[in-house]
């Protein structure tokens, strides 16, 4: 509890849950990174790559990102509405249910209970748990909004509302399945339709977890950290509605040249290009907010996290639509290029903005100074270099493998068998592991810094 009786206990609970799942998810990621060039590490069924991959994506996508989103949302909702959480005990139950669900999710995926629909791999009992958890969250979201003491809802609240609504629709529609028993179910959709529903979900769950709520953090914490107002309110209105409208049409760019009807693919391709505009609306808003105050890049350690983050978001939202084009997709799809693309978004944009938000928020809610700004700066450079080396290595690997798959001899026959193309990637896989390790060390410093911050006496300053 603090000023105005705001509930910060829940904010802190979710923040440290996020850090916990972040470390777990990254350890799994590093293990898999080694398996890619050293398959002897597939030591047991539950440690085999096929099972670990879903633990990694769910652990970081649902465990880390959602916890960070719940943490910052509960904070932002109370601050921007100038009202304490109306149902604090519900929020507390939400925290317990969340961590229980993620732990069970990890165990069930290790055990091979996997529906195989990407980012929706959890079996049906856990799906029900996720829906209950979401309703618990939504009650507090709309509770604070309805009881608010502030006339207007600021941009960040729009993004939180859109996320709350969109994830509910996406999750329920894509996870409709018929149970065989407690641990097994089958999708109600078949073949091309199942693919279409899944990638509508898969693309938009990324949109409404890795984009929309991260933008909510960006629009709230950037002005807070810099003392500068957002450059253009109008631009943020236009980008918000355009983003929400266009995102949902684009899922099928994940299904280019598959048996899905061609018109759905083409519509997705068109809207993907359109999406550059609202995405860059936020990028421009971010850059122009610092207009005339770029000295803060040196003087304020948080600013470079936000600017690096929004820059990777900008690159991500150009790269994504381009690789969704049918001709480029024919080359890049199924290669490591796409793996690099995803990780620029998660390791660059999401991690940078969450780190800056936590660095601002945790000292604020615990009435302490950050343990060490110097360590935060070291973390910035480690995560930045780790991520850039990681993603560039994967882009090069993707281009190389794509080219090798396509290469033909003068007589028209294939130049390389599949195994040649795999073996040629091992140097990149080793480099990727090294880069991941650098990134991971940065993350450990991040976690350490925040743990040490809350362990200090309130109101003290050092380092």
């Amino acid at each position, binding site marked *: 509890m603090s000023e105005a009786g705001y509930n910060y206990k829940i904010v802190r609970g979710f923040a440290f849950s996020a850090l916990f799942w972040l470390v777990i998810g990254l350890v799994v990621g590093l293990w898999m990174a080694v*398996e*890619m060039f050293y*398959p002897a590490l597939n030591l047991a*069924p539950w440690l*085999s*790559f*096929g099972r670990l*991959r879903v633990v990694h994506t769910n652990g970081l996508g649902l465990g880390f990102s959602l916890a960070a989103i719940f943490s910052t949302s509960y904070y932002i909702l109370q601050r921007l509405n100038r009202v304490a959480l109306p149902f604090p005990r519900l929020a507390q139950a939400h925290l317990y249910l969340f961590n229980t669900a993620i732990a069970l999710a990890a165990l069930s995926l290790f055990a*091979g209970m*996997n*529906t*195989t629909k990407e980012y929706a791999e959890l079996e049906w009992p856990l799906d029900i748990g996720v829906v209950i958890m979401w309703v618990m969250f939504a009650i507090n979201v709309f509770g604070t*909004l*309805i009881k608010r003491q502030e*006339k*207007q*809802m600021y941009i960040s609240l*729009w993004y939180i*509302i*859109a996320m*709350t*609504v*969109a994830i509910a*629709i996406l999750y329920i*529609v894509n996870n409709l399945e018929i149970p*065989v028993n407690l641990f097994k179910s*089958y999708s109600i*959709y*078949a*073949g*091309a*339709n*199942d*693919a*279409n*529903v*899944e990638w*509508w979900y898969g693309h938009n769950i990324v949109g409404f977890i890795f984009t929309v709520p991260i933008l909510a953090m960006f629009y709230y914490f950037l002005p807070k950290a810099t003392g500068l107002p957002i450059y253009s309110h109008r631009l943020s209105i236009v980008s918000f*509605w355009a983003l929400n*409208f266009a995102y*949902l*049409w684009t*899922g099928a760019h994940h299904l280019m040249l*598959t*048996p*899905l*009807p061609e018109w*759905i693919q083409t*519509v997705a391709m068109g809207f993907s290009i359109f999406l550059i505009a609202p995405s860059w609306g936020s990028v421009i808003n971010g850059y122009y907010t610092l207009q005339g105050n770029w000295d803060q890049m040196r003087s304020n350690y948080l600013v470079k996290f936000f600017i690096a983050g929004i820059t990777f978001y900008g690159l991500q939202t150009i790269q994504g639509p381009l690789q969704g084009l049918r001709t480029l997709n*024919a080359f890049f799809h*199924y*290669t490591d290029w*796409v*793996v690099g693309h995803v990780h620029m978004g998660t390791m660059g944009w999401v991690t940078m903005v969450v780190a800056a938000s936590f660095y601002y928020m945790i000292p604020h809610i615990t009435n302490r100074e950050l343990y060490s700004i110097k360590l935060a700066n070291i973390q910035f450079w480690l995560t930045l270099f780790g991520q850039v080396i990681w993603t560039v290595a994967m882009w090069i690997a993707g281009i190389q493998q794509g080219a090798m*798959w396509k290469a033909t001899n003068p007589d028209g*026959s*294939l130049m390389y068998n*599949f*195994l040649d193309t*795999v073996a040629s990637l091992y140097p990149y896989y080793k480099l990727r592991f090294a880069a991941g390790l650098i990134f991971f060390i940065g993350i450990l410093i991040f976690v350490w810094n925040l743990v040490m911050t809350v362990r200090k006496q309130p109101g003290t300053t050092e380092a």
Partner: protein
Amino acid sequence: MGITSKPVVFAVLSAAVILIGTTATVFIPLFMPSTQPGSAFIKPYTAVEQEGRDIYMREGCNNCHSQTVRPLRTEVLRYGEYSKPEEFAYDRPFLWGSRRTGPDLNRVGGKYPDSWHYTHLMSPQGMFEKSNMPPYAWLAKNKLDTGYSYKKTSVLGYGYSESDVEQQISQYKATVTDGAYPSKASRDKVTPPELRKELTEMDALIAYLQKLGRDVKQMEARK
């Protein structure tokens, strides 16, 4: 001023905006014939093949192997005829995948004898030194659980009776445990003695792999 002071209206409007693209590109296509074409040549999986498919899903094989050959020249050269929507009529869920750490498997059925798969699954590195595929020898040490086989095929609407399912299971068991089974030597090498007269998870997985793309060959042949 406007909707930014009305949270519930704002939420309803957001939902409406989100549902426009969803309706046009996802909900309406659900009911269009082009997304669910059928063909008399495409047969549902047998109970054993379906068990194999479930093991494929359990082990997350789809994380490294796609099941869609795109209509591109080099892809057709490498894998075979490109994928048709009819082939997936019984696929719940679809297993098209998104990354090819290993090769596409949509045309793998009939490409190699069963013995090749037993040897390869036992130790991919034993067959291809530079492969990074995990070894799956342990699948041959697990007896296939057919307790839910009938329930599965009935949930999936394959139209088998309980005795159909029993017959499919005993028939496949008879095939792989027969002394004259052409892949007997490689099966025995990976299967422990006490399971050689039973169906193992590896048997079912191989049955599934051998089904992939076989029906479509007949469909294409009749065109």
